[in-house]
C-alpha cells in the first residue's frame, strides 16, 4: 500500500524524517519496502502554450510544435498526439534536468531542431503514465514555473501490510500506528454536513435478508449531484496512491476507501428498481454482468446486492453494469457495509477477481466505522459535488456486539516476552493504540478492543501489541539452556545420515529431484505402474503433474541430461520419498534410495579407453550395494534373478536383505537408454530405506581373532560358459568341511587353448581350525574332497599347478 507522508500528516503530528519514520514502522510490524520521492523542484520546466502543430517533414509519427514558454516561442519535436493548439503542458527547456534523470539539450530530431520537450507524467516522476503529454489547465499563464503547478515533491512510502492488520490498509489506520509510535493521538477529519433533502426512508428501502453474509448495511441518498472533476488536491492524492481520478463522485468513494479503509459503492439511484436494495445470496444459475463488462456465473452462495429486478453488485467485490454512476447521474445511493470476510474471499477466489474492495473486505473492515465512512463521503459530496443529502441514514445492523473485553495480566506480558516491561508502560502502550482500559487492578487491566482491530482476540494478541510498540530490540538474548528431553528418538534420521555418508564414502554424488514429475517421463520408463500413480489435480505445469512412485525415472533422466552436458561418467544417488496409491485410492509414502551408474565411474587408473561391458557396470553397482549393506550392518544380502519391465532380461536382480525383498537393481533397457542417446550400459538400483537403516544401531558381537594359522589352497577349473559363480559356490559349500572359512574368486580366464564356450575360474580357499594348527595333509585332504565334488557335479576339469 502507498502512504503519501503529507496525507498522513493531516491526521497525526510527528517530527521525523521519512527514513526515521520508515524504520519505526518496520520495527513495529509495518514493513516499509521503499521510500519514493514523487515530483521534484522542476528547475527549467515551465507551463508552455502550444501555438502551432505541424507534421514532422521526415517522420510520420512526430509533430513539430511551436510552444510559447512565456518568454519566447520555441520549436519542439513531440511524439505524442493528445493535444491541440491552445493546450497547455509542462515544457522542459534546454538545460532542465527531469526527476527521471533525463537532461534536456538542444538536439536535432530527424533533421529538425528541438529546443525542449513537452513532458508526460512519468518523465516528471509524477506517475507511471506515458500515454501522452501531461495537460494542465488553460487558465495557467504560459511561463509559470511548473513547480507552482505541481506543488512541492511528495514522499510516498510503500508498505507491506500483514494479513491480520486490515485496519492498516488506510491512511487513518497508518496514522493510528504512527500516533502510537510517537505517543500522540490522531485527529479525524470533519464529517459534518447539512441534511437538506427528504428523509432517507421516503427515498429508499433496504431489505437485508442475509445477515450472516452482511452483518451491517448502510445507505444514504444524495440528490442533485453535479458530476465534474474532483478538486485537484484530491486528484493528486489519488494519483500518489496509484488510483486514476475519474469524476468527483467516483473519486470521493475511492478517496474515502484510501482514507479510512472502508470500501463504498455509489449506485445511480434512478437505475435501482423501486429504489430498493435487497441483500441476499445468489440463486442457482443466477448471472450478472460486472462493471468490467464480464458476465459472471456460478453466483449461488455469493452475497449479492440486488434490487427487486436484478443483481446490481457482487457484494464487496465489484459493482454491476447498468446501475453505476454515468454521465447522466444526478442522484446517488451510497452504500457502506460490512461483509463477512470468508464469503468475500470465496467469491473473489472462485471468480478469480480481486479488487481494492474485496482485498479489504476479505481481511475484515471496521464494522464500527461503516457509518462514519458513509458520513465522510457524504460530507465530501455535499462540498465537492453540490449534492443535497437526504435526512438520516438507513443503517441495518441487527446483531451489534458489545465491545470485546480482554484481561491483560502484567506478569504474563513479562513472562512471555522475557522482558521486564513496567506495568505503567504496558497500560500506556495499550492506550496509545486506542484501546480502552476499563479496569486497572494491581496485577492486570481489562482492555476494551475497538472494532477496527478484529485481530485482537486473546491476551497473547495484546502481549504482541506491547512487544512491537515497546520494541523487540529490548528483548534480551538469553544464552540457550539445553534441557534434554530424555525419551526422544531420532534414530531414523541418524541412520539415514549415516547411510548418506556411507554412500558418499563409496564415491557417489548425491542428487535431489522434485517429488513430482511429468507423466511423459514416467511413461518413458514404464507404463506398468499406472494404477499406483498419485496424480496432482492442480499441478503447476504438466512437467510436475504426477507424484513420483519410483526414483528411477528421474535418475535415468538426470544421467541422460548430464550425458548431454558431456559428463559421461557419474555415479549418483538420491534418497527421497515416493508416493503410492492403493486400490482404495489411499496415498502412502515410502523413503527410497536410488543409485545410478553411467560410464567408467567404477574404473580407476588409466584403463579408460576400453568400452564399459554390461557385466562390468552391473558388478560395480553390485559392489556398491554390497559395501553399503555391510556398512549399514545388513547381515544377509542376496541377489536373485528377476523380470523387470525397465531392465534387461538377463541383467536384473531383486535385492533381499535379511530375508526380505527390498529393492531391484539392473541394467536399463536399451530402448529406454536410446531416448536419452545413451549408448553405453547404465546400471540403476532402487531400494526401500527401511531395510537399509533398521539394523545400523543393532549391537553386534565381536569375534575373537583366530589363534591357529590358516592354510590356503587354490583351485582352478575349466567349466562351461553357462556355469555361474553361484553354482560353484554352492557345490564348494556343500562339499566343504567346517574348516573351510573363506572362498575367493581371483581369476576368470578365457582362451583358444581352453576352448570355445569354456572358461577357467580360479578360487582361493582358506582352511582353518578353531582347535589346532592344520597340517598340509589336512588341507590337501579337504581340498581333494572339494575338487572331487566340482569334477563330479560340474564336469569341471581341474587344472593342476606345478
Amino acid at each position, binding site marked *: 500500500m502507498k502512504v503519501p507522508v503529507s496525507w498522513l500528516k493531516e491526521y497525526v503530528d510527528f517530527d521525523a524524517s521519512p527514513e526515521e519514520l520508515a524504520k519505526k514502522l518496520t520495527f513495529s510490524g509495518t514493513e516499509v519496502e521503499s521510500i519514493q520521492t514523487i515530483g521534484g523542484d522542476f528547475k527549467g520546466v515551465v507551463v508552455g502554450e502550444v501555438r502551432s502543430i505541424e507534421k514532422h517533414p521526415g517522420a510520420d509519427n512526430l509533430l513539430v510544435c511551436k510552444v510559447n514558454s512565456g518568454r519566447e516561442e520555441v520549436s519542439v519535436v513531440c511524439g505524442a498526439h493528445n493535444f491541440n493548439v491552445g493546450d497547455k503542458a509542462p515544457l522542459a527547456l534546454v538545460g532542465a534536468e527531469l526527476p527521471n534523470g533525463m537532461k534536456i539539450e538542444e538536439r536535432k530530431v530527424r533533421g529538425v531542431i528541438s529546443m525542449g520537450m513537452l513532458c508526460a507524467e512519468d518523465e516528471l516522476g509524477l506517475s507511471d503514465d506515458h500515454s501522452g503529454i501531461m495537460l494542465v489547465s488553460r487558465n495557467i499563464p504560459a511561463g509559470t514555473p511548473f513547480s507552482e503547478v505541481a506543488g512541492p515533491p511528495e514522499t510516498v512510502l510503500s508498505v507491506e501490510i500483514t494479513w491480520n492488520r486490515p485496519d492498516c490498509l488506510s491512511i487513518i489506520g497508518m496514522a493510528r500506528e504512527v500516533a502510537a509510535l510517537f505517543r500522540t493521538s490522531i485527529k479525524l477529519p470533519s464529517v459534518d454536513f447539512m441534511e437538506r433533502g427528504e428523509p432517507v426512508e421516503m427515498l429508499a428501502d433496504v431489505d437485508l435478508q442475509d445477515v450472516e453474509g452482511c452483518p451491517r448495511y448502510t445507505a444514504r441518498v444524495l440528490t442533485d449531484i453535479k458530476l465534474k472533476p474532483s478538486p485537484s488536491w484530491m486528484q493528486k492524492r489519488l494519483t500518489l496512491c496509484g488510483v486514476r481520478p475519474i469524476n468527483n463522485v467516483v473519486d470521493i468513494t475511492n478517496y474515502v476507501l484510501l482514507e479510512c479503509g472502508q470500501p463504498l459503492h455509489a449506485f445511480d439511484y434512478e437505475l435501482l428498481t423501486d429504489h430498493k436494495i435487497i441483500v441476499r445470496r445468489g440463486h442457482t444459475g443466477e448471472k450478472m454482468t460486472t462493471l468490467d463488462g464480464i458476465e459472471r456465473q456460478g453466483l449461488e452462495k455469493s452475497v449479492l446486492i440486488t434490487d427487486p429486478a436484478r443483481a446490481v453488485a457482487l457484494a464487496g467485490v465489484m459493482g454491476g453494469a447498468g446501475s453505476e454512476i454515468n454521465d447522466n447521474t444526478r442522484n446517488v445511493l451510497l452504500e457502506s457495509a460490512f461483509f463477512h470476510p470468508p464469503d468475500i474471499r470465496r467469491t473473489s*477466489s472462485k471468480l478469480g477477481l480481486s479488487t481494492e474492495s474485496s482485498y479489504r473486505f476479505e481481511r475484515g473492515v471496521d464494522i464500527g466505522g461503516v457509518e462514519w465512512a458513509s458520513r465522510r463521503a457524504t460530507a465530501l459530496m455535499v462540498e465537492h459535488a453540490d449534492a443535497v443529502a437526504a435526512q438520516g441514514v438507513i443503517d441495518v445492523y441487527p446483531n451489534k456486539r458489545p465491545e470485546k473485553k480482554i484481561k491483560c495480566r502484567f506478569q504474563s506480558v513479562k513472562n*512471555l516476552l522475557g522482558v521486564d516491561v513496567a506495568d505503567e508502560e504496558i497500560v500506556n502502550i495499550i492506550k496509545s493504540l486506542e484501546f480502552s482500559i476499563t479496569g486497572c487492578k494491581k496485577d492486570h487491566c481489562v482492555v476494551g478492543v475497538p472494532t477496527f482491530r478484529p485481530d485482537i482476540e486473546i491476551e497473547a494478541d495484546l502481549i504482541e501489541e506491547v512487544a512491537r510498540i515497546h520494541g523487540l530490540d529490548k528483548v*534480551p538474548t538469553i544464552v540457550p539452556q539445553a534441557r534434554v528431553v530424555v525419551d526422544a528418538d531420532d534414530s*531414523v534420521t541418524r541412520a539415514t545420515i549415516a547411510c*548418506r555418508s556411507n554412500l558418499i564414502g563409496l564415491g557417489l554424488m548425491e542428487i*535431489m529431484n522434485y517429488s513430482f514429475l511429468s507423466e511423459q517421463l514416467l511413461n518413458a520408463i514404464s507404463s506398468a505402474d499406472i494404477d499406483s500413480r498419485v496424480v496432482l489435480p492442480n499441478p503447476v505445469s504438466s512437467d510436475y503433474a504426477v507424484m513420483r512412485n519410483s526414483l528411477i525415472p528421474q535418475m535415468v533422466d538426470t544421467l541422460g541430461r*548430464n550425458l548431454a552436458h558431456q559428463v559421461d561418467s557419474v555415479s549418483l544417488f538420491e534418497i527421497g520419498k515416493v508416493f503410492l496409491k492403493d486400490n482404495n485410492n489411499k496415498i502412502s509414502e515410502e523413503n527410497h534410495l536410488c543409485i545410478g551408474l553411467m560410464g567408467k565411474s567404477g574404473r580407476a587408473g*588409466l584403463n579408460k579407453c576400453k568400452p564399459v561391458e554390461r557385466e562390468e557396470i552391473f558388478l560395480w553397482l553390485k559392489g556398491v550395494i554390497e559395501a553399503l549393506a555391510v556398512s549399514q550392518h545388513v547381515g544377509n544380502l542376496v541377489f536373485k534373478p528377476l523380470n523387470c519391465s525397465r531392465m534387461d532380461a538377463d541383467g536384473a536382480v531383486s535385492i533381499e536383505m535379511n530375508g526380505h525383498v527390498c529393492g531391484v537393481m539392473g541394467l536399463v533397457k536399451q530402448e529406454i537408454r536410446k531416448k536419452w542417446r545413451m549408448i553405453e550400459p547404465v546400471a540403476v538400483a532402487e531400494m526401500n530405506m527401511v531395510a537399509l537403516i533398521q539394523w545400523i544401531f543393532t549391537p553386534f558381537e565381536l569375534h575373537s581373532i583366530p589363534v591357529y594359522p590358516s592354510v590356503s589352497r587354490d583351485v582352478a577349473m575349466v567349466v562351461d560358459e553357462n556355469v555361474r559363480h553361484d553354482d560353484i559356490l554352492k557345490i564348494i559349500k556343500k562339499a566343504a568341511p567346517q574348516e573351510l572359512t573363506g572362498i575367493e574368486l581371483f581369476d576368470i580366464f578365457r582362451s583358444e587353448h581352453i576352448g570355445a564356450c569354456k572358461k577357467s575360474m580360479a578360487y582361493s580357499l582358506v582352511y582353518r581350525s578353531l582347535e589346532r594348527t592344520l597340517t598340509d595333509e589336512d588341507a590337501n585332504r579337504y581340498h581333494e574332497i572339494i575338487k572331487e565334488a566340482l569334477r563330479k557335479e560340474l564336469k569341471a576339469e581341474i587344472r593342476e599347478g606345478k
Partner: protein
Amino acid sequence: MTAEEIIKLKENALKECQAAGTMNELEAVRVRYIGRNGYLPQVMKGLKDVDPSERSEYGRIANEFKNQVSAALDYKKTELAERGTAEAKSVFDYSLPGVWRSLGTKHPISSIIEETVRIFGKLGFTVAEGPDVETAYHNFEALNTPAHHPSLDQTDTFWFETGELLRTQTSPVQIRVMESRKPPIRIITPGRCYRRDTTDATHSANFHQIEGLYVEKNVSLADLKGTLAYFAKEMMGTGVDIRFRPHFFPFTEPSVECDFTCHVCGGKGCRVCKNSGWIEIAGAGMVDPRVFKKVGYDPEEITGYAFGMGIERIAMIKYSINDIRLLYENDARFLSQFI
C-alpha cells in the same frame, strides 16, 4: 627329515635365491624348494614321524622354512623386476595421476539440513519427521489458520482428491508430536514442503524447511532470541548477529521475522543484503495459546516458541548460489564442487 636338515635346507634355499640372476633361475629355485614336487611336501610329511614331544618345535621350523623361503623369493623377484626396469632406463614417474576412486559429494541441501540438525542437537533438540501428504487439519486448522486465509486457496496449495494436501510447511509435524506426547518438547523438523509457485530464480514449487519447537514451563521470547542467535553464529560465523522484526503468522503470537547480519559485508551493506546489512532468514514466535488448546495442552501451564527457516535460502546465501533451480537440476558440474 630332521629339524637340523630342514634348517640346512632353508639356508641353501636362501643362498640360491640370493644368487639367482634371472627370473628363470629364480623360478627353478621356487620349484625345487617349495613347489608341488619340491622339498616342502616332504618336510610337511615328516611331521607325522616326529616324536610327539618334538612335534610343535618341528612344526615351527617347518613353517619358518616355508615362510622365509617364500619371502626371499618375493623379495628377489621385486629386485630382479626393478633391475629390469632400470636397465630399460625409464623413470619412476611420481607425477602420474594418482589412482583411486573419485570422492562422493553431499547435496548442498543435505549439508545444510545435517548442519542444522547438528547445531540444534547441541542445544538438546531431536529430529522429528512426518508425512509429506498431510491432512488439512494438521497443515492449517490445528495451526490456527483462519478458514479464509489465502494459503488455503487452490492457487497456493496442492490438494488431492482425497481431501489431503501436500504440506506447505513442516509445522504439521509439530502438531503430530504434540498430539502424541506431553511437554517438555524440544524438536526440529526438517522436511520437504510444497507450494504452487511457478519455478523461477527464487521460487520452487518443491522446497525444504526446517522448523523448531520448544515447549516447557516459562519459555519466553528471550529464550527464542538466544537460541536463534546461537544458531546464527554456528551456521554463518561468529560475527553474525540477529535482530527481530514484528510480523504475522497464524501459528504464533507474538510473531517475529528474524534477520541475520549479512555475512558477506559484516553488516556494512552490500549487494547481497540490498545495502541493509541484514538478511531475512527465519520466521518465529511464541506458540499461539489456541494451538496449544487444539492439542490438549493447557496454555496456562506451559509456553513455547517455534521457528522456521527455508533450507534452500540458507544454502543459497551460504554458498552464494544465485538461482534456486541449480539445486534441483542435478548438474554434476555443479554438484561435484560440494566436496
